[in-house]
């Protein structure tokens, strides 16, 4: 067994016992009853509370910081500033441009400048007011085009290319020739405004520095391993003396996948004061911390034949990165690299530029880098369909990429259920009798997408496994799984339990999962790029298949039968007839009850409990355990950047959305979303459906309500959940999650991702549905009532022959 093994898609014991069922999450009851322990629930003896002083300027030099008065305040234990934590870090090794507290300069309103540890938050807050910082304000760049046009003073000093964070230009085939020959070319501008994650749990971290010199940091992170590395670097403590633990986590969506200021600050303050230190961000601080979806200005040209076959796509994208790099290098690639499915086109070119601006830094949000271009492209495809008078679903069918193929930019496609996704949403929504035929004001739109299921590229280049697990097999019949994976609510711990129970033939309660603790668990790279189920799942199967033969052999030898006649079912080992029969009558997914005899026993067959089997094996082979690992195969195009966006498998999604548009108020109501998603095998259909619904919900919100913006001073426009509007239950449309299973040859039992892909089509499908409803094309997000009214007016004026006024862009 090895990290690159392919384990096949079949059930290990004949028929699946746990996989494919709507099982509870391992932490479901704890969360529902309030028993779950989140980072903020941690309270250690003598613990101090820390608060952060933040920049009031979008761009300024720090002349001086005077913390003397703050330090004198009763209850204050320490004040630190950038000089105490000067080492830079950043999630990507090539762009380490952040410091935990500003050094010399601030680059956005809300950037951390100093931190205080005190006996309670009141004292810490009072101390913040006593810290005097002298700033010299600099010109604030709030518009990426301005950042690209000038850079004096630059946002980051010492860079060759001014305010350019990253530029990528890639071309595949002769796009210009293809577009010149195309029967039609649609060219247009699209704007994605920028949104944030709005996870319900704010960031929180607790630092503890023990007498043994071990630094422990509990953090609400989705990347324990990278935080571990970053702490070692910044604090100059050897990594083996640092332990990072992710407690139960209240949502992330990509917003907790960077190392953050507070993690370094609590660690430093714990080391400075000798006391445990906690920092919990307020909701306002979470908005400044951001790392949300990048605003993008996108120009697309798409050419097609008269029959609607795509011949070329040409994209120019300007990305507003905010003040720091974060994942920006990857974002800049993803903005182009992830568009090359689910449709085939023979030529493709993209030019994407990420600019620094003096705003909260952008980063990855659910559907990292690809939700914005997907919006632009799927709307453009719809324009193509209406121009050519082809049904929008039909035009998508005519351009199917197919399975077991390669995209224009060299990505390997294995399983592909997109055609089926289109069929399913078309049928479920009664598209054929309703699209184009609903009364004015009501309409339907479709869109499709493809997304990575893990990525083959670790964030820092290294040849070690991308996912690894360890199993401990106990005499009691318990198997403990140790995995570095971060369960951020997506259910990776639950998946680990189901898979191990499936592989070892155990009842669910015989498997417990310990995760995301760097002292206990083998390294996993973290919860990003929709990699956990795919990669950790494969690592788990790998580990199980190393240890299972030992247990089976111990039992077989004990019974003196051939190992093929030993079968584990829900925690009971039974002897099969020769030839083997299906074991019957054992309760599905139930508890293992040693002592209770399964029905087979009555038939005179031998049986024992899994615990007894483990004991036999332990007596024979010594302490039982196994490690397992996963690495992607070598993937990607043979060019610089060709591995970015290369995934071991891709998921596919199609949405049909139905909207109603109130032409008097300009309000769009999303009535229903049909979501068909190809997740490979649905290991737990309920969890898959939950991800599909949650994704669609988030997409609808980004289209109609959410907007992360700053005012003309660079101050966040509304850093609260009152003014940053996520939908409530009454705003949420009816969601129909329609699972499509195209068993992937390399996924665990054929599974692929389900957490990010299903978001993509929601946004363009709404725009396309609005076109069907009232004949306007919305290309600038968000689709506010003001924009709808302006577009309706422009359409009316155009029909009447008068020139259309410019869109009222600021209208809300």
């Amino acid at each position, binding site marked *: 067994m090895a990290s690159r093994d392919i384990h096949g898609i079949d059930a290990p014991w004949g028929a699946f016992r746990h996989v494919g069922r709507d099982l509870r999450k391992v932490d479901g009851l704890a969360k529902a009853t309030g028993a779950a322990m989140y980072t903020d629930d941690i309270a250690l003896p003598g613990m101090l509370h820390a608060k952060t002083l933040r920049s009031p300027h979008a761009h300024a030099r720090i002349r001086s910081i005077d913390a003397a008065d703050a330090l004198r305040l009763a209850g204050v234990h320490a004040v630190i500033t950038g000089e105490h934590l000067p080492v830079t870090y950043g999630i990507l090794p090539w762009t380490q441009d952040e410091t935990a507290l500003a050094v010399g300069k601030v680059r956005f309103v809300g950037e951390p400048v100093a931190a205080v540890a005190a006996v*309670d*938050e*009141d004292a810490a*807050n009072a101390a913040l007011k006593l810290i005097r910082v002298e700033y010299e304000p600099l010109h604030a760049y709030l518009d990426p085009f301005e950042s690209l046009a000038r850079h004096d003073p630059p946002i980051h000093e010492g860079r060759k290319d001014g305010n350019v964070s990253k530029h990528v230009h890639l071309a595949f085939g002769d796009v210009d020739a293809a577009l010149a020959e195309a029967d039609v070319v649609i060219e247009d501008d699209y704007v994605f405004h920028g949104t944030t994650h709005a996870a319900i749990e704010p960031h929180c971290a607790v630092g503890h520095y023990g007498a043994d010199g071990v630094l422990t940091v509990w953090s609400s992170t989705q990347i324990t391993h990278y935080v571990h590395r970053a702490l070692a670097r910044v604090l100059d403590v050897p990594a083996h003396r640092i332990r990072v633990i992710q407690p139960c986590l209240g949502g992330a969506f990509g917003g907790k996948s960077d190392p953050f200021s507070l993690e370094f600050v609590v660690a430093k303050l714990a080391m400075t004061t000798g006391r445990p230190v906690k920092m*919990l961000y307020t909701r306002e601080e979470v908005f400044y911390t951001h790392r949300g979806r990048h605003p993008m200005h996108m120009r697309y040209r798409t050419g097609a034949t008269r029959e609607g076959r795509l011949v070329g796509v040409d994209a120019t994208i300007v990305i507003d990165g905010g003040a720091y790099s974060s994942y920006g290098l990857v974002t800049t690639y993803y903005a182009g690299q992830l568009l090359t499915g689910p449709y085939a086109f023979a030529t493709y070119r993209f030019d994407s530029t990420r600019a620094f601006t003096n705003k909260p830094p952008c980063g990855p949000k659910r559907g990292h880098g690809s939700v914005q271009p997907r919006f632009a492209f799927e709307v453009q495809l719809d324009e193509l369909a209406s121009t050519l008078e082809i049904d929008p679903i039909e035009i998508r069918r005519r351009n199917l990429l197919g399975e077991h193929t390669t995209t224009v930019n060299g990505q390997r496609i294995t399983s592909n259920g997109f055609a089926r996704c289109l069929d399913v949403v078309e049928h479920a929504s009664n598209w054929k009798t309703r699209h184009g035929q609903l009364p004015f004001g009501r309409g339907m739109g479709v869109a499709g997408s493809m997304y990575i299921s893990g990525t083959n590229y670790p964030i820092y280049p290294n040849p070690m496994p991308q996912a690894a697990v360890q199993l401990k097999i106990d005499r009691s019949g318990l198997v403990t799984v140790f995995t570095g994976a971060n369960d951020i609510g997506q259910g990776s711990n639950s998946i680990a339990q189901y898979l191990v129970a499936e592989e070892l033939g155990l009842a669910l309660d015989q498997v417990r999962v310990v995760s995301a603790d760097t002292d206990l668990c083998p390294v996993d790279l973290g919860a990003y790029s929709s990699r956990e189920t795919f990669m950790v799942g494969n690592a788990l199967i790998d580990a199980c298949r190393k240890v299972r033969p030992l247990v089976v052999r111990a039992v077989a030898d004990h019974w003196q039968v051939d190992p093929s006649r030993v079968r584990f079912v829900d925690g009971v080992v039974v002897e099969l007839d020769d030839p083997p029969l299906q074991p019957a009558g054992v309760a599905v997914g139930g508890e293992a009850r040693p002592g209770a005899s399964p029905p087979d026993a009555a038939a005179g067959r031998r049986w024992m409990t899994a615990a007894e089997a483990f004991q036999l094996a332990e007596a024979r082979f010594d302490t039982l355990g196994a490690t397992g690992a996963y690495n992607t195969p070598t993937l990607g195009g043979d060019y610089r950047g060709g591995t970015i966006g290369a995934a071991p498998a891709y998921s596919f999604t199609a949405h049909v959305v139905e909207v109603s548009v109130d032409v*008097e*108020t*300009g*309000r769009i109501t999303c009535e229903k979303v049909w979501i068909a998603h190809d997740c490979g095998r649905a290991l737990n259909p309920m969890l898959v459906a939950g991800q599909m619904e949650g994704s669609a919900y988030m997409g609808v919100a980004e289209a109609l*309500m959410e907007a992360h913006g700053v005012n003309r001073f660079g101050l966040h*426009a*509304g850093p609260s959940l*009152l*003014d940053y*509007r996520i*939908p*409530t*239950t*009454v*705003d949420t449309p009816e969601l129909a999650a329609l699972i499509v299973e195209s068993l992937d040859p390399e996924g665990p039992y054929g599974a692929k991702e389900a957490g990010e892909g299903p978001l993509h089509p929601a946004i363009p499908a709404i725009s396309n549905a609005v076109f069907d409803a009232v004949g306007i094309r919305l290309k600038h997000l968000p689709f506010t*009532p*003001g924009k709808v*009214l302006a577009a309706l007016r422009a359409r009316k004026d155009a029909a009447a022959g008068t020139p259309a006024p410019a869109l*009222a862009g*600021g*209208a*809300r």
Partner: protein
Amino acid sequence: MRTAISRLSLVEPRSLRHALRLMRDEAGLVPLAGCTDLYVALNDGALRATRFLNLWPIEELRVIEPRGPVLFIGALATYSSLIRSADVRRRLPMLVSAAREVGGRQVQNRGTLGGNIANGSPAGDTLPVLAAAEATVVLGSATGTRRVPFTAFYKGYRTTVMRADELILGIEVPEVEGRQWFCKVGTRGAQAISKVVMAAVRAPHPRVALGSVAPTVVRVPKTEAALTGGASVDEARTILMSEIAPIDDIRSTAAYRRHVAGVLLGRFWEQTAAGRPVY
């Protein structure tokens, strides 16, 4: 979370009279009802006060009952109790509609009518209802009770004629003749501050009140006069759009608010036309 709350004190009155005496005797004592506005202000750091008078236990402020020709609604009536009250439903259905639009269930269980009035946000959802219903605010102090017409209660943005030693005891709503209408255009379906909120009564002399279009809730006399005088709704709409002076903010733009106010007027007129069922 801020822990500042721990330095605050809550004064528990034994009775309404005691509460009024405490209000007279202690400057800076802030009455606290459901605390849904106060909590936000405190956590935000916008409120300096440290001593609060807990009105919540004063049962007589919770009463909702017809009193002669008027319907009395105690200041402590919560949105939930307004929604449940048969009297309010019968006599002032537009207040029920407004109450249903406030926040979410938790805020409806805790937030009070008196708090909404005293808080005086131009976006307060019940305020256009009270303005359109020509309600009267009943104010109490240690020295007595006085009544102020609701339309004269606000002096400007979040300022009222209430004295520092006074409490709102409740409101009195006269019989409202004509069809009542209410609509809130929020930024989302719940937990939202309105972009525009409107309450109106279709009577021989129609009454129209709007929130979120001026520093305080407003009636629009010119629009009302036009409707009374038999102007078409389109004419009235034009008048309305010049009669209000909304602003741009994070929730909307002045232009959009003006437009939507006009749309709402049209809907009010259409939906309250004779023969149409009440919503």
